[in-house]
């Protein structure tokens, strides 16, 4: 479904991604695991070209991706994205936020006038039902909790009826219980609908629990690729360099990542 060859992204003198090769099979639930700053987000954002790659080819569903307006729109219609900070529009209703997932497919002129085809409204309703928020459809989205906002984000992604969902740290701002709920909704829906998911995570426990295949990324390179049971302590040390040397020195994530200390403690228990 996704085929990446020689993907490199350079920011000035800094190489965020250094020649990534990756194939993702249709319907797979792939977890990209790695510390903050490893290049996970850049990798995801190169796939739907929110960040243009410096070098390399990316094929999605057999189609090469490029920056032409028409092909970009086609690509983004079939590749949905879920964000760490939900990125829902606060003053719109829950239903309208989900409907924005249909914007690439509905007639533009009508959508400017807030007119949507009934079929698309039905799709939005169905997606809200999947994340069990149909009773909140008329509420303003800024009245919801963090976990509910992320479920709106998932419903918006599903409303695109995409072939691929890119989830960029979808649970990094949520508490552990809510995180599991959100990841469960994402996994269930994508399984039932046959959607390929590439999900960035930095929590090893969630990666083990939800990933069918895990790709470890460290300083812009793929350092591990395999099933969760092959994710051994040696592999973790490779993904998170400096993790086992010294409890205090091992800080793979900067302080902005609220869950980073939890992750480190967990990894040390494992080690």
């Amino acid at each position, binding site marked *: 479904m996704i085929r990446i060859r020689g993907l490199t992204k350079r920011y000035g003198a800094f190489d965020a991604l250094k020649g990534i090769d990756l194939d993702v099979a249709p319907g797979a639930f792939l977890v990209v695991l790695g510390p903050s700053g490893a290049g996970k987000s850049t990798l995801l954002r190169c796939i739907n070209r929110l960040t243009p790659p410096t070098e390399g080819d990316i094929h999605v569903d057999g189609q090469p991706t490029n920056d032409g307006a028409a092909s970009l729109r086609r690509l983004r219609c079939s590749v949905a994205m879920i964000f760490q900070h939900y990125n829902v529009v*606060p003053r719109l209703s829950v239903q309208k936020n989900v409907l924005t997932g249909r914007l690439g497919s509905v007639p*533009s002129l009508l959508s400017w006038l807030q007119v949507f085809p009934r079929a698309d409204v039905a799709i939005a309703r169905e997606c809200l039902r999947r994340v069990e928020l149909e009773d909140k459809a008329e509420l303003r989205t800024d009245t919801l909790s963090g976990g509910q906002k992320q479920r709106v984000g998932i419903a*918006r992604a599903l409303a695109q009826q995409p072939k691929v969902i890119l989830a960029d740290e979808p649970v990094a701002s949520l508490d552990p219980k809510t995180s599991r709920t959100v990841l469960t909704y994402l996994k269930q829906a994508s399984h039932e609908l046959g959607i390929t998911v590439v999900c960035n995570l930095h929590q090893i426990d969630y990666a083990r629990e939800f990933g069918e295949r895990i790709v470890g990324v460290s300083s812009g390179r793929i350092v591990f690729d395999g099933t969760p049971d092959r994710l051994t302590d040696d592999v973790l040390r490779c993904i998170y360099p400096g993790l086992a040397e010294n409890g205090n020195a091992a800080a793979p994530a900067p302080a902005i990542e609220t869950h980073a200390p939890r992750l480190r403690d967990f990894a040390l228990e494992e080690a």
Partner: protein
Amino acid sequence: MNIGSYTLLVARSTGSLGWWPRAGIAAAAAVLLWWAARGSQVSFGELAKGLPWIADFLSRMFPPNWAFLDKLVQPAIETIQIAIWGTLLAVILALPVCFLAARNLTPNMAVYHAVRQVLNITRGINEIILALVFVAAVGLGPFPGVLALAVHGAGMLGKFFSESIEEIDQGPIEALRSTGAGPIQIIIFGVLPQVITAWIAVVLYRFETNLRQATVLGMVGAGGIGFELVGSMKLFQYQDTATCILVIIVMVMAADTMSTQLRARIQQGSR
């Protein structure tokens, strides 16, 4: 420094020169003020000598000619009408360009700078000057006043509109971009919901300013109550002038109160 039982607490000047740099700055400031006073012929002596004349002028205005109120109703209504259309046309002129003048939405920086400069120019020309130009173009009456307020207001509204666009959360914009939404869809579903309350507050403020300006536009023949004001002064009917000034004060106060309350209500509602 001790002065009797008091202490002068002034930070000690740093550097080897002691107090001399500060003395130099004080002297330069004194020279600047003296120079500006010479140029503008500020003279408190002249003001004191003129006081009897001012008293004479005020006594001629007293009591205000209440019978003149009848003749002011129509011009006062016309002033409000000028302000309404001046504001509306300013909004219509500012709306399409404000997106080009916002750093985060502009297609390229050349367009951004060009539009900014156009807004600066229209805002830089005073309404009275614009009114003189439009009176020459379309003749005496309220319409040149409307045009003057529209052009100057468009410059001001365009600047404020684009500044509130620059302050919005970029996350939802990126999310909409990743759904394959077009630029206008992104503006309607991502930008407008985030800026609309700020915009309404600015438009209300602009209406209030326009009402104040519309009262003086009549001085150059651009309709409204200012025309009566100047007319009565030219005919030495100072009691009529007093009535005009009172009506203007009441109108401006009413507009100020109303727009302050409306803006407060809108800003409360946005929380």
